[in-house]
């Protein structure tokens, strides 16, 4: 099947001379119709530039942006504007028109297309229902909470019946609970209206919650791309591993002896492995530092533990730890 959005060899450089920053370097991504595609990376990885290239808010220096196989870069301006109506976008800062009511904000894209006022209003009211804010038609953005503003922004984005919805850190300004509800809304919309969602974020939890596939962006380069579960459970790239199992700094002077890093990559379900070591091997390990997360009952992250001084016993512990599924242990000190 032909991808709905395809980015081919995108490059973008900002600044010039010594201050030159390569935001994107030969980035190629294919997004299938109907999927929820995530792009994750640390800040400065170029993900915002990447998503803005999809509707040409940012023009790449080189490469192609294809929508249904048609190159946006080669389009005349007028045609590009029409295509942009099929590629909606929501933003971290919502970007609602502050001097318009919620209803008139949703009418805005319809107004641009020249839809008659009465018809636009009817459609806007339907969309308010869909995003769950039917009673906020007359409210101005200043009277709405962050989550409500994003819902209005989503309704506005849906008004032009888009095929693709771009989300530029759409939940980053929201609290966890609101983030959840917005993500659920995006998922529902994608499923029910067959809309392809491309979202960028720096939060793994966002990707885990709703994305089918993910691309990891690292310093302007796609480090890894694939099914979310596959990428997050078994990252192949350094950037992927860094994301899934963040480096845990060794506390200074906490422990003079040998130290092991235990990486959990999602398969070690709920086994209490430290306790197992204590009971099976009679060796007590102390935890020196940890950054682990539980996702759907699966452990992800890194833990630093002390090891016995005796080399044989140390090896014994390491072997024992490594026999668990999804656990990798290595000596680092």
């Amino acid at each position, binding site marked *: 099947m032909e991808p709905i959005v395809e980015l081919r060899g995108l490059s973008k450089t900002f600044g010039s001379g010594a201050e030159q920053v390569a935001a994107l370097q030969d980035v190629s991504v294919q997004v299938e119709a109907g999927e929820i595609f995530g792009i994750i990376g640390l800040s400065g990885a170029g993900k915002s530039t990447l998503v803005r290239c999809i509707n040409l808010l940012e023009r790449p220096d080189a490469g192609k942006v294809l929508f249904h196989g048609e190159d946006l870069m080669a389009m005349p301006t007028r045609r590009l504007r029409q295509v942009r*109506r099929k590629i909606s976008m929501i933003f971290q800062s919502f*970007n609602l028109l502050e001097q318009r009511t919620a209803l008139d904000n949703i009418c805005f894209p319809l107004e641009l297309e020249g839809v008659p006022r009465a018809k636009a209003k009817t459609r806007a009211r339907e969309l308010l229902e869909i995003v769950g804010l039917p009673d906020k038609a007359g409210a101005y953005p200043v009277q709405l909470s962050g989550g409500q503003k994003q819902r209005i922004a989503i309704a506005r984005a849906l008004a032009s019946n888009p095929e693709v919805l771009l989300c530029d850190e759409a939940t980053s300004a929201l609290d966890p609970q609101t983030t959840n509800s917005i993500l659920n809304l995006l998922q529902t919309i994608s499923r029910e209206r067959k809309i392809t969602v491309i979202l960028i974020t720096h939060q793994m939890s966002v990707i885990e919650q709703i994305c089918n596939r993910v691309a990891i962006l690292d310093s302007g380069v796609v480090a890894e791309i694939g099914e979310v579960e596959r990428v997050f459970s078994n990252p192949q790239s350094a950037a992927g591993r860094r994301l899934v199992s963040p480096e845990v700094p060794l506390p200074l002077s906490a422990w003079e002896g040998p130290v092991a890093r235990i990486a959990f990559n999602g398969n070690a379900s709920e086994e209490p492995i430290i306790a197992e070591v204590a009971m099976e091997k009679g060796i007590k390990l102390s935890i020196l530092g940890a950054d682990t997360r539980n996702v759907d009952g699966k452990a992800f992250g890194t833990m630093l533990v002390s090891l016995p001084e005796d080399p044989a016993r140390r090896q014994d512990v390491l072997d024992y730890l490594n026999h668990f599924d999804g656990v990798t242990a290595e000596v680092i000190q």
Partner: protein
Amino acid sequence: MFDLFSDPVKVANQMQIIYSEYGFAIWETLYSLALEAAFAYLIGLPLGVLLVTGEKGGVKPLPKPIMTVMNVVINLLRSVPFLILMIICLPLSKVIVGTKVGTIATIPPMVIAAFPLVARMVEGSLREVDQGVVEAAQSMGASPWQIVTKVMLPEALPSLISGCTITVATILGYGAMAGIIGGGGLGQIAINYGYYNFKFLVMWIAVIGLVVLVQIFQSLGTWLSVKCDKRLRNRK
């Protein structure tokens, strides 16, 4: 200049002048103000819009030489003192309105002095509009014209009104100098009767009239600007 009431005859004489001329002077002040402001905005508003939309990275970038010319012309007109500008522009008045004297003759120089101010005011107001909102409109396929008329101007409206208030007060101030070339209004009364003929009571009352007008326009402008700003609504 401050001993206004010591001579009853002079006072009566001056009150007579005020009584017979004040009303008409206010009318002249107001109608020339309205014409001047209208023409200043007719030229200044589009120019201010172009200063923002035409720059590099704007919604409709213009060639750099055009931008440079616009900026230089505006800065030039802004830096020539109004009195001098008015004198330079008088031949232009002859061409445009057919006379070099009288209230009508002062309107072209006033417009030429005021439109660069308007352009800068409008420019400043439009720059306050959140770039993200402009981008959102672009992402929806809005044309540059739609962005200007449906996003930038409406979003900047409260600020544009504030700017208009400042412009009006400035034009009122210029009016006094226009009295020198025979422009009518309160300014002319103040200068001709008051300053040139030592009728200081007339001068002061004319000045008070101007002060009151500025106060009224300022209050009106502020009220309107606040009233139409939907960002200032309290949360329900």
